[in-house]
């Protein structure tokens, strides 16, 4: 045994032991703050700036869920399974959490790492310092048995969301499936996606629906855009803002009830809302009462749009494109399940396109911008000295200083045309919008969808620096970033003259998006997050008609558990199969038998009435 690895402290099974001992050594890298970090197969596993801070942020996302599990299992040991711990920075965060809330005596940690080399490095460096909680490492892709033994029958919670987890998601889902039901085959979730009425988030909702479908879930979209003209009509009906507000609230209430009615009728497992999807607290509560979970992807700037204050607490989970203070604020108003989830691209739509010469001439330029005419863009673009600079999109005032650059009368551009423009343009300017700043917003944090979309189209962009950008792309390599408007002309000149570098950067950005930043990645993350937090959702995915789900529901009903023991654990069973085992007139009818018999009788009655199948 290598004395540097301390495996005797952390490893209890021979498979993990052998894997770690046989693993190769990975080179240690350093983040900007000097803390160790690691790159594995081209993927950086921790923040290049501050890995410990990143871990603390991740901890904050899980805190609410962990609080809930600890409360629900008072006085019992709870196991935290860290899936893809990497170098183990999350351990520090957990130690601190346990000390703060006094749950030291009840928490145990199991680090589940599928890559032996990563585990070896982690054990070598021990970035977590001294352990204040019992920690065990289970290593290897096939080591499900050891994981199951390590978790045992204790209530548990699984932490995901690390880069290492995302990198090997399928392996983790497979191994975790033995204890959580995730990844077990397979009854798809029924996900209802009601869209916003208009705006940039409308296509985002559609991309989400596509991604859910690709993941194998049953999806129903409710396209509410036909109601947008009615929404606008309320503004035309009266000049009294109060009346307009009343009318619009009535419309929102009506649409929310429609969504709830559809969710109930279609028996959705999850309702996925994006930005201003018209849902109300009443409708969300009604759905929750019927066991339907809801999630909101808040893809707006929380400082500018504050409707989240009223609505977010009524969602079961809230995903955000900003974190830090926003997450603090959400938790302060009672949102327990919060997760940072940046924007993305849909490679089926945002992709390199072959253009005809006419299209290249029409859509192409040295420099272009596609988007709405926010104040900062009008101001900054007016200063740019590009002779061949095309601006596309609507909502540009006629009086704007850049009106002359506006193409095709400032009409709304379709998604496909946008992809054509990106591809045809040598440089795509990507300036994040602001109604309050001249030029660049120095406090800008989130990264807009355009960044991912341009990249997915294989096109080159110059993008303004944002706080979250370096976590999503590698500036200078995958993206070219400007920090103030003065940098733009020189950068543009350089890249106009260096086509190869332009193409190489664009290609790297596209690769990064396809590997990590598609809607598929996001929605998979979202579903996993929800499944880990909502037992019923996980059981639905696995199937509430799975023996194991029924056993879990049985709780301490020993009679039911014993009754179900006659059936194979990981199989789906039907009511008829269960009832076929009940022999009337042959010994005492047990309570579980009576209940299943009752269910079958009501089922038969319902079929007779034509209410169910």
């Amino acid at each position, binding site marked *: 045994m290598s004395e540097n690895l301390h495996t005797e402290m952390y490893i209890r099974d021979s498979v993990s032991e052998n894997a770690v001992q046989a693993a190769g050594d990975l080179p240690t890298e350093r983040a900007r703050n000097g803390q160790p970090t690691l790159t594995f197969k081209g993927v950086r596993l921790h923040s290049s700036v501050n890995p410990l801070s990143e871990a603390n942020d991740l901890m904050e996302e899980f805190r609410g869920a962990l609080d809930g599990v600890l409360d629900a299992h008072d006085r019992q040991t709870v196991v935290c399974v860290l899936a893809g711990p990497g170098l183990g920075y999350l351990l520090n965060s957990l130690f601190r959490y346990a000390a703060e809330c006094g749950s030291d005596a009840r928490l145990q940690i199991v680090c589940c790492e599928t890559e032996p080399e990563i585990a070896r490095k982690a054990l070598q460096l021990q970035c977590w310092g001294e352990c204040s909680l019992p920690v065990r490492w289970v290593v290897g892709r096939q080591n499900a048995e050891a994981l199951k033994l390590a978790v045992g029958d204790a209530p548990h919670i699984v932490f995901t969301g690390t880069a290492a987890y995302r990198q090997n998601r399928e392996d983790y889902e497979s191994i975790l499936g033995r204890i959580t039901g995730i990844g077990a085959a397979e009854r798809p979730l*029924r996900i209802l996606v009601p869209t916003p009425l208009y705006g940039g988030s409308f296509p985002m909702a559609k991309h989400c629906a596509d991604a859910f479908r690709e993941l194998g879930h049953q999806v129903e979209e409710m396209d509410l855009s036909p109601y947008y003209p009615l929404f606008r009509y309320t503004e035309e009906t009266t000049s009294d803002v109060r009346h307009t507000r009343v009318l619009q609230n009535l419309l929102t209430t009506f649409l929310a009830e429609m969504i709830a009615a559809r969710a109930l009728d279609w*028996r959705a497992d999850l309702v996925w809302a994006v930005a201003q999807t018209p849902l109300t607290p009443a409708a969300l509560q009604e759905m929750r009462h*019927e*066991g339907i979970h809801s999630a909101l992807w808040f893809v707006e700037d929380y400082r500018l749009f504050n409707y989240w204050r009223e609505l977010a607490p009524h969602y079961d989970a809230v995903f955000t494109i900003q974190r830090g203070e926003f997450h603090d604020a959400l938790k302060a108003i009672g949102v327990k399940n919060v997760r940072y989830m940046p924007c993305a691209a849909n490679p089926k739509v945002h992709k390199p396109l072959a253009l005809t010469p006419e299209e290249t001439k029409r859509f192409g330029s040295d420099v272009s911008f596609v988007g709405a005419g926010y104040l900062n863009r009008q101001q900054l673009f007016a200063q740019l000295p590009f002779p061949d600079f095309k601006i596309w999109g609507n909502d540009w005032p006629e009086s704007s200083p850049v009106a002359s650059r506006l193409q095709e009368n400032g009409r709304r551009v379709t998604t496909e045309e946008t992809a054509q423009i990106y591809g045809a343009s040598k440089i795509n300017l990507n300036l994040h919008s602001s109604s309050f700043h001249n030029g660049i917003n120095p406090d800008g944090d989130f990264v807009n969808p355009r960044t991912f979309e341009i990249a997915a189209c294989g096109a080159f962009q110059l993008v303004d620096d944002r706080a979250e950008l370096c976590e999503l792309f590698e500036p200078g390599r995958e993206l070219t970033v400007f920090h103030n408007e003065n940098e733009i002309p020189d950068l543009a000149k350089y890249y106009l003259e260096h086509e190869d570098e332009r193409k190489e950067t664009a290609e790297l950005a596209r690769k990064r998006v396809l590997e990590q930043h598609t809607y598929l990645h996001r929605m998979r993350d979202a579903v996993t997050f929800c499944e880990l937090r909502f037992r*019923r959702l996980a*059981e*639905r995915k696995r199937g*509430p*008609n799975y023996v194991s*789900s*029924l056993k*879990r*529901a049985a709780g301490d*009903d020993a009679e*039911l558990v014993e009754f179900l023991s006659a059936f194979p654990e990981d199989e789906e069973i*039907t*009511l008829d199969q269960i009832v076929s085992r*009940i*022999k*009337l*007139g*042959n*010994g*005492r*009818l047990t*309570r579980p*038998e*009576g*209940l*299943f*018999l*009752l*269910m079958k*009788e*009501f*089922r038969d*009655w*319902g079929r007779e009435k034509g*209410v*169910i*199948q």
Partner: protein
Amino acid sequence: MMPLHIVVVNFTRMGDLVQSGPLLRSLKRDRECRLTLIVYKLFRDVAERLPMVDSVIGFDVDRLVPRLDHNRGDLTAAYDQLTEFLRDARLTQIDELHNLSHTPQSATLCALMNPRRLYGMGRLPDGQLTVNGEWFNYLLSIMQDRTFNPFNLVEIYARFNPHGGPFGPLELTVTEKDHRRAEELLRAAGVDSRCPFVVLQPGASCASRMWPKERFAELAARLAQRGVRSVVVGSVAEKHLAENIATLSNGSAVSLAGQTDVGDLAAILKTALKLISNDTGTIHITAAVGTPAIGIYLGPAAAKDTAPFGDGHIIIEPDLKCAPCPYKSECQTFICHHTVSVDHVFELAVADRHEQKIVAARCRGVRVLRTKVSASGRLDLELLNAPATGPNNLHLSFFSRFWDTLLNEGGTLGDSIGGFRHDIPAEWNNAVSRLSAVFSRAVESMSRFSNDVANGASEARISNSLRKQVEWQNDLHSFINEYPGLSSFPRYLLVRLSTARTSDVAVYMADLRDTLNYFHHGLSLLTCSEDFQKAGIPADAAIA
């Protein structure tokens, strides 16, 4: 001493719940007890207005059943829901549980509540279905064919009380709040509650029971000429129908369909002059609040079964051979709808009680009946006119006494049912002879079976004896088809036999023997020749 805890399960609709009131009242008579009523959640409001009920539990069947769907179901949630339901503190330590429903699911649910005594359909500890109470068996037997049932549903329910005793009228609580709200609804609809108005109920559970809406509209218009407004009620689903009638009546009628809950409806009915309705639950609410009703009973609706329980209600039935029709009739002509004219209903609606007979006598093409509760608690139907067709009241009267004698405790072999003086056709004598022959065969089979068991016969021989039991039961089935006029009795026997316990040969034999005793008793009542001959059972069973 703790009061008795009585639980009643009744998974039925609004009208039947109201009709169960007298039974519930009688269950509590002369006993210190607490009565809990379990109903479908949808009808909780009605149940809570039964004044004799101390507590109501709503069973959310609308939530449960979708969870049992093959494709979209959630067995875990369904199991959780049922477990949660059974955890209700009011479902513990039940002294008596009366299951008024006649379904396997109600039987299983009742069994899971583990009462000390269970009446009605339930399950034995080994899970087999069982029925405790002969009147429950009777109810099960008439579910297949009510044609020869002589009892009103209220009377049948009342007979479920194992302790017997008299039973009273229908009851329903109407509060001050209900009256205030009713007042508001009427005012908003432009109806002055101080002026006379009637309530119209044009909806029904199926099209065959519905008097045409145009006729309701015309009736409303004619009543308006007499200064009587019409208020049309109904569920949300009937709103369109009600508004249609209001429009067709040129404003003589106003619609409150979909706007009333049970309390509002009851208060409106209490204030109204009368209700004019198809055979619906509303007619029983009307009887419960003491307002006279005129029932238009079409399709399979039969006054003898479901007339409102009380004095002075009028029922109009078509004077047709085919009326009432069997439940699963596939009639598409609905000829019975046209026999009841607006004149009939209008004249009867505006007639005072002492005029009703005179008015009824003029009504051609219909049967006009008036209800009266006798001193013994029976609901009699007084025929006010002379139609060409109609139930054979003697027949029904005979069988009401037949069943009371056979099924009530205290009836003994040799009891006679007298008082009839009609000739009996030869074929009915043949029927009774045939039934007697089946009985003889049954007794012979039973005797052989007993001997085989007592002598330790081989399994093959005992199997053979068991098959013989099935043979005479098949004979009963054949008899039912050939002699429908006498079918109720063999149906009852077959229902008893269907719940014979089969877990053990000795137990099965005991159940068989018990049924044969009833067979014997019933036959003796039928073949006390003088009495039976005088019953006047008609030759043509279709007329009834």
